[in-house]
């Protein structure tokens, strides 16, 4: 009897379980299919500029993304406003064109949540994608009063402006100047060069008289912005929202590239990044001169190289002799964006206004030359009175602020990334920059086209 019983009962318990398993698998598959079916709608959420529908203003935590340098700003604000709940997140600040912010925003756009309220980026080209992605809130349309916007240095917010609307606020100006070691210059009886010809001649002199010392560095991704931009090389002429003219092999480009090649060859122009451990260890205390942006003084010489006080001087960028319109380059400068999805626009714009205009941060703490004119005055006075610099810094920096060559723009593709991938490996392998200019041109054109730009090349 038991045997019979077994035979009848046996298949019973097995089957439902197997069925349950199959059902579970089927359910999962259905879920997957549903996921495939529904979420595709979100894929094309690239909204066009102008239209801006604020999210429900429910307040809550203010999420702020900053790079490590701007962390002090966010922390200072939190200290002044202890009642405000802030979530301060540090990220790479999109340095060197890492595209971290764009990657994250594109993911947040898919999941429809997670956007930070306020973001600092060390790049000036964020509006080239952030407006189209519906991330950047139009600041000049009611969020920031026009009277405040008028306080920025002339054209400082040009990289933030799309079709007349301001979508971000410039943190600092990064006009290039010539930094030099006043003590060494005097000790060795050198004159600070005012033309590129003199600069090159001095470099050649240093190479023979004081080998190992540097007159500049060209190992960074932003080297073209220091030298070629200042030399009016039209490699990056953004002529419209999706149009660029690329002429990286013009006479202006080759002339400056040849100067760099000469100095790289005699080793007075370093090919290491000024931020590399290599430079810090071996070359930081051998800088006689270095053309570079305004933030080099605080961030690089004082902060990283620990150059002693009273040695560092600032002079205007050299110019080609015979050129009547002085021009300088620009390295970054950074921008602040407010998310169009913010549920706390009031707190976000309050923070944004404070961080970009206040004397408390921009005037007294910020390492770079503030883009907001009033704060720049305070900043210059504070820098001068700190006694760190060997001579007057106000005149050369103020003059350079108005001499940034307008022929170099900010496209969606990162010029820094293109230079790093195309020119730097060649230079490391001993090739001349002049010989790499055509490859650089091709690479810019390719990247611009891949990002949907109309490219005119000469």
């Amino acid at each position, binding site marked *: 009897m038991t045997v019979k019983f077994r035979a009848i009962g046996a298949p019973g318990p097995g089957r439902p379980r197997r069925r349950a398993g199959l059902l579970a698998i089927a359910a999962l598959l259905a879920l*997957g299919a549903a996921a495939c079916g529904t979420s595709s709608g979100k894929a094309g959420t690239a909204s066009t500029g102008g239209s801006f529908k604020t999210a429900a203003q429910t307040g809550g935590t203010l999420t702020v993304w900053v790079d490590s340098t701007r962390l002090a700003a966010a922390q200072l604000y939190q200290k002044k406003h202890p009642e405000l709940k802030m979530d301060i997140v540090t990220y790479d600040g999109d340095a060197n064109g890492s595209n971290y912010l764009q990657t994250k925003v594109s993911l947040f756009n898919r999941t429809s949540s997670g956007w930070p309220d306020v973001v600092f980026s060390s790049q000036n080209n964020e509006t080239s994608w952030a407006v189209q992605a519906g991330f950047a809130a139009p600041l000049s349309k009611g969020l920031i009063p026009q009277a405040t916007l008028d306080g920025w240095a002339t054209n400082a917010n040009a990289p933030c402006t799309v079709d007349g609307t301001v979508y971000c606020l410039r943190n600092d100006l990064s006009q290039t100047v010539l930094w030099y070691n006043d003590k060494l210059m005097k000790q060795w009886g050198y004159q600070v060069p005012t033309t590129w010809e003199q600069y090159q001649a001095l470099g050649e002199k240093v190479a023979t008289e004081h080998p190992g010392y540097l007159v500049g560095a060209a190992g960074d*991704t932003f080297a073209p912005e220091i030298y070629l931009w200042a030399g009016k090389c039209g490699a990056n002429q953004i002529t419209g929202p999706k149009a660029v003219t690329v002429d990286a092999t013009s006479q202006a480009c080759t002339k400056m590239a040849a100067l760099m090649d000469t100095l790289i060859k005699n080793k007075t122009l370093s090919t290491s990044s000024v931020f590399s451990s*290599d430079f810090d260890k071996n070359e930081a205390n051998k800088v006689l001169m270095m053309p570079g942006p305004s933030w080099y003084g605080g961030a690089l010489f004082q902060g990283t190289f620990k150059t002693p006080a009273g040695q560092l001087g600032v002079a205007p960028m050299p110019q080609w002799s015979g050129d009547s319109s002085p021009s300088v380059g620009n390295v970054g400068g950074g921008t602040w964006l407010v998310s169009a999805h913010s549920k706390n626009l009031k707190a976000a714009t309050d923070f944004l206004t404070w961080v970009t205009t206040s004397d408390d941060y921009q005037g007294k703490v910020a390492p770079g030359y503030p883009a907001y004119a009033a704060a720049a005055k305070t900043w210059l006075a504070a820098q001068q009175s700190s006694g760190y610099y060997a001579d007057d810094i106000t005149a050369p920096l103020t003059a350079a602020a108005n001499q940034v060559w307008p022929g170099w723009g900010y496209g969606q593709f990162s010029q820094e990334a293109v230079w*790093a991938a195309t020119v730097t490996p060649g230079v490391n392998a001993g090739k001349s920059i002049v010989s790499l200019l055509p490859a650089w041109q091709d690479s810019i054109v390719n990247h611009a086209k891949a990002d949907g730009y109309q490219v005119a090349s000469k």
Partner: protein
Amino acid sequence: VSSPTATTGRTTARRGALRALWPGRAGHGFVAAYVVLLIAFGVVPTCYAVYFAFTDGNARFTGLSNFSRAASDFRFVPAVEHVALYLVFWLVALVVLVVGLSLLLYRLSARRVSKALRFLYYIPGALAGAAGVMVWLFVLDPSVSPVAFLLRAMGFATFGQVVAPGHLPVLFTLIAFWTGAGGWIVVMHGALNNIPHEIIEAARIDGASAWQTARRIQIPMLRKWIVYMVILAFAGGTQLFVEPQLLAQASVGVAGRDYSLNQLSYDFAFQNNDVNTAAAVSVELLLVGLVVAALFVARSGFFDAD
């Protein structure tokens, strides 16, 4: 209706019946857990990618246009070349060194040394992939590397020179071998131990040298394991991503940007906001992996019973 004894009798009987008719119950349980994960993180994303690859941003069917857009991108052909070259270095190094090292390990008579070495080989694999790569970013920078003297001896004074474009396949192979091969050595060692001792003993009595034993007995008997390793290593290799991506970050974009197909896919998705073309690249990678796996399985008799 039924007495207590009858009930107990029935349950015991039922349990016994189950054991008799479905002996692999525990196995199915384990596999079921895996199947759930496979569906959630393997099958569903794959179906998602295939769906994306054949549609556009507005979910309209577009045929092969995403594939042709990917193939016509200026970074596509170089990326294919990079990955192909890397695969050659990686697979050859993996097969030769893993088999060689496991044979050596097997022959080590001192059990303690063998154990210590097995542990040593395995340690790097215990580090998560990205962390393992991070270690190498320091090792490769002459100004901070513990083996800086070696790099200098090879003529490299700066990180930029070490990561020159021509060196990348070798560097990525080194990194991948260091992070991934230890596990395979342990697996191969286990497989070698599975070869019946009588066969090795017989070979020894017949006067076979270590080389002959390895060549005629051990390697042929390891064949399936080697094929298994190559299939997985090939699939992993075509999906090269973490190594170049981290290197690109560390070298501020000098080396490793847009190096592999997976990076290109990532660029399409997140820089050009073109998830559909990104999906097309990933579907191509899937196809290549499947075809190669099928070839290896068919040619090696992978699923033949012993």
